[in-house]
């Protein structure tokens, strides 16, 4: 358990070093982390809510095209 915590701490340290946040003051670090966390949260939310629906619609559209042309597109639109 301790090893797990150590490892996560080390990963956070790597993140600080790679993005360059390591040199900034604590309040600047918080701003950057907040902004990044918000953006990542929004990306996760969007992908969770919208991606399955869009994928399903796209698959239906293309499979409809492959089978027979006009009636399936009309069916989808209505």
């Amino acid at each position, binding site marked *: 358990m301790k090893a797990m915590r150590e490892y996560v701490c*080390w990963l956070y*340290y*790597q993140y*600080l*070093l*790679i*993005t*360059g*946040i*390591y*040199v*900034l*003051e604590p309040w*600047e670090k918080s701003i*950057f982390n907040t902004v990044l966390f918000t953006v990542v949260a929004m990306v996760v939310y969007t992908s969770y809510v919208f991606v399955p629906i869009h994928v399903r619609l796209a698959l239906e559209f293309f499979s409809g095209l492959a089978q027979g042309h006009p009636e399936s597109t009309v069916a989808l639109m209505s």
Partner: protein
Amino acid sequence: MTRNSTSKLLNGDTCHRTNPSKTPGANGFVMSHCLFQKPQKRYRRSAEKNHHVSNNQGLYNKPFVQSFEETPLLVAVLTYVGYGILTIFGYLRDFLRDWKFQKCHLAREREEQKDFVPLYQDFENFYTRNLYMRIRDNWNRPICSVPGAKMDLVERDTHDYNWSFEHTGRVLKDVINMGSYNYLGFAENSGACADAASECCMKYGVGVSSTRRETGNLDKHEELEKLVARFLGVESSMVFGMGFATNSMNIPALTGRGCLILSDELNHASLVLGARLSGSTIRVFKHNNMQSLEKLLRDAIAHGQPRTHRPWKKILIVVEGIYSMEGSIIRLPEVIALKKKYKAYLYLDEAHSIGALGPRGRGVVDFFGLDPTDVDIMMGTFTKSFGAAGGYIGGKKELIDYLCSHSHSAVYATSMSPPITQQIITSMKCIMGEDGTTLGQERLSQLSENTTYFRRKLHELGFIIYGNKDSPVVPLMLYMPAKIGAFGREMLKRNIGTVVVGFPATPIIESRARFCVSAAHTRKMLDTALNAISEVGDLLQLKYSRNNRPRSEDTDSYSYLESHQEH
């Protein structure tokens, strides 16, 4: 340049340039073409590699292995990302400072002066304000003992993020010193050098209170100049009180308008300053690249001065012995061959290489086994290997007599202090073996042993190291801006003092930590340092190298032939 002659050369046919003193004109083949063609890119088969290397290897009496491993792409991208984020925060902080939300610690003009042309360049200091200041605690650390193999550092504390420092009163003792230019270990406060220097101080005092021209010319200076001339193998020499001033004040005395200076890309600031002050035309060739230098020479001689096409009054090639930021050694045999062919003059700045290279410690000329009279102007400093301060210029007697009256440094600058002069005399005699002991020779061999060991170990550990195998300056690549600060601090926590360098001394993504190996380091100290470096390397993920396979016997020769990585 015909096909069959290239292939003749590549097939190891008569290697014309084994003896550099032979005139290249004796062989008609060489006269009609460039001395050094661009090496043909045939690296796949080792047979070809063999012959490609012997093309220029005829001038060298031992293998010249120099490598500058390429930056891994992912690391380069992440470094740019890091700099981008820091730039955004830099703009944010500047905005806050401008609109008075935050206290501004920098120099500002008074309110009344704001309508005039600004005194302080705000944008140029952007980098200094926003990155350098945040990691400033890695530089200017006060040392409170002699900077030998181990030193004592004053502990500093900061409450406002490095804008101001306070001394806590404690001292960090016995910090292993991997940053001082103490190549032969003469920076010590006991021993023959220190005793001789203090005796001299008792006799002559410390200050000279005059310039060389007036009443500042001591008999010690004359003695030193004769000794330096004997040490280097030249006719005569002259010493100055400051190494930087030697370069920047003497190059203007040697060249002027209508002369051409060909200087290496990575020359030191003193050489660049001297070249600019002289008013000559300056052309820059790629670092250690003989084809680039040759092309510039040919263009200069063929086309002459820019508009009038008159021939140049003189052409001066300015190079350094060891480049301290890269750890690379100049390809001196090739430069001398070029200089002789095109009748140019050579100015060699041996600041880091004098005393540190060569079997007898006489610098890069000794390292390659060449004749010192081939180099027209040999310049060097006493700061690095001799544990003193100051610079010298060595060459023919006419040159030195001319410089005596025409150089600004000789005429106006205060002459060298007597104890320092004595320190140089004693240490130089020690290196030459004239003090009756073998201490000099021991130190020289200890230095080269330490260098080889340290470089090999770092390479095996998997770090990217730049430079020549024999150079005691070892740059270790860090790349990312945050790692510059982190490396310096982590090493200090483990009681090792290092020097980290970033922009503008290096290209923006190639920041590095620079180690200077010294003869005063024992094997145990180097092992401690190496363990700490390895630990910090794992902690910070610095082991970027992709060729870090442990070397076995048969791969050793292959790596020597891997010249596609050298400059």
